[in-house]
């Protein structure tokens, strides 16, 4: 402990005491009352409400009808279309997060190696992230459209294809189309956060390794990567959470089709609510989806905590 701090310690202690005095008593809860209220409205109440709806015959016009106990939840678990939607949601969220993490990190490495130019490019990369997903969907729809789409125009001009391809209308290509739009929108998020993580690294370590003859890949694998493992785990966690929120792109690009091909759990719930007005069914699916999201996300939370703990 240095002398200056030692001298100030009694003062600090006094301040601490006064500080805590000022924020004691029942008044102190007023500070957090609004955020607790916000949590009640956005989390606690919806959970209880969904439980209630899932257990009763409920429509959008008449919620909480006859008591059905677990019937609707059992029905959701036996509904093959919903189960496949659930599986697609989970698979998609995991895969797209991995792809975006890898791409985003690669772009961040590229930009951070460019120093000042990289910083300018970073501000341009920010733009896709700020674009409304509905508009992202519209833009990619124009590119992928069978009639008048840019991609079909190019492929036909180069004579790679004879007939226009319906990217959004064919079962094998619809998911790829959503993924490309998603990568366009969300990779920048990873780029910005990874770039910030890379910026905290001291140059000296990598320079020393380079002087010792390490190749760029070795430098990355054995020096950079271990140093940014903890932030990368946080970024992956955030990206995974965000990927489970996918809805707008599906709505605009494919509307869950062709058939049920790109129907995610979110879209299935939306459909049950606003096309069938069967709120009980939607609530049961919501409950199942929320539990599945938690089961997939929590191990990643644990991994992130462990890496963060190792670092300290």
């Amino acid at each position, binding site marked *: 402990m240095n002398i200056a701090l030692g001298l100030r310690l009694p*003062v600090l202690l006094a*301040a601490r005491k006064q*500080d805590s005095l*000022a*924020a004691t008593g029942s008044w*102190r*809860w007023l*500070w957090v009352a*609004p*955020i*607790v209220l916000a*949590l009640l409205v*956005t989390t606690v109440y*919806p959970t209880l*409400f969904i439980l209630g709806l899932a257990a009763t015959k409920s429509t959008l016009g008449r*919620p909480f009808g006859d008591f059905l106990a677990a019937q609707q939840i059992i029905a959701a678990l036996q509904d093959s279309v919903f189960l496949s939607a659930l599986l697609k949601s989970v698979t998609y969220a995991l895969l797209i997060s991995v792809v975006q993490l890898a791409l985003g990190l690669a772009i961040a490495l590229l930009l951070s190696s*460019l120093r000042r130019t990289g910083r300018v*490019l*970073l*501000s341009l*990369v*920010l*733009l896709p992230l*700020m*674009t*409304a*997903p*509905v*508009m992202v969907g*519209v*833009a990619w729809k*124009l*590119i992928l*459209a069978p*009639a*008048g*789409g*840019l991609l*079909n125009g*190019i492929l036909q*001009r180069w004579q790679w294809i004879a007939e226009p391809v319906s990217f959004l209308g064919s079962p094998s290509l619809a998911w790829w189309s959503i993924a490309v739009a998603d990568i*366009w929108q969300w990779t*920048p*998020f990873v780029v910005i*956060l990874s770039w*910030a*993580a890379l*910026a905290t690294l001291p140059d000296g370590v990598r320079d020393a390794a380079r002087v010792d003859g390490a190749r760029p890949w070795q430098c990355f694998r054995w020096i950079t990567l271990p140093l940014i493992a903890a*932030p990368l785990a946080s970024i992956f966690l*955030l990206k995974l959470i965000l990927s489970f*929120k996918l*809805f707008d792109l599906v*709505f*605009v690009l494919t509307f869950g089709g062709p058939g049920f091909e790109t129907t995610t*759990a979110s879209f299935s*719930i939306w459909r049950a*609510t606003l096309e069938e007005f069967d709120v009980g069914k939607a609530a049961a699916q*919501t409950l199942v*989806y929320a539990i599945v999201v938690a089961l997939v*996300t929590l191990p990643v939370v644990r991994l992130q905590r462990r890496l963060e703990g190792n670092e300290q």
Partner: protein
Amino acid sequence: MIPARTSLWRAGAVAIVLAFFALPIAYLLSVSFKTKDEILSGDFLPQTWTLDNWRQAFEAIPLTDFVAHSISMALIAGIWTIVITLPAAYAILRLNVAGNWLVQMVLGSYMAPPVVALIPLFFFLKYAGLLNSLSGLVLVNGLVNVPVAFWLLTPFLRRIPIEIEQAASLDGARPLRTLVSIITPMIAPGIVATGIIVVILSYNEFLLASTLSMGDASRTLTVGISLFQGDRLVNFGQMAAASLVGILPVYFVALFMQRHLIEGLAHGGVK
């Protein structure tokens, strides 16, 4: 000393990245200036440029109203989010009000996809008489963005040396006064960045807006644009122009404030 080959390789990589990220917006712009006949050509650039789509987009849907709805709703919701979050974040981090459990709950509440709260929020607004109104959207968006604001604001608060608050406290300042006249000016860039991000989130939001507010009187832009593919089918050119009307103000703000935004986001990821 970067060898020439490496820098060439890098330039190529940068070009590919930029082309990919610029492509959709560039094509959106191009289509918005195409004539009706050319829209189906699949060419990158229009042969003859026209402003018709831009004019017609405003005639096909009440675009000006939708933009006004979106902007006013998002701004008020953003202020509402900050007002809820800033004092709470400050109290939790610095005044030891509540404990880690509240932090966990706030951040944890962000894990659930928005569709989970869709039906409950629908009935919440229905019972409150706020369904199909901008006030309802303000209320809901202001609340759902609280975890994001909390996540973005806390790193800024953490960075302030505790001594500053202690000095203020010694001078007799109460915590609320310390927050308003000392902490808030110090982390103003963080508050601005957080504010802009939550405003843009509300402005861009679609799922809740489309369900909780139907009817032109309170329709937001994202929902309005989605109508282009439903009953009021209009051509691609108008759809592109209308989308750009929604995108360009955001890009303007984002580029203007890019330093703050990147810093705000970057702090969140790395402690």
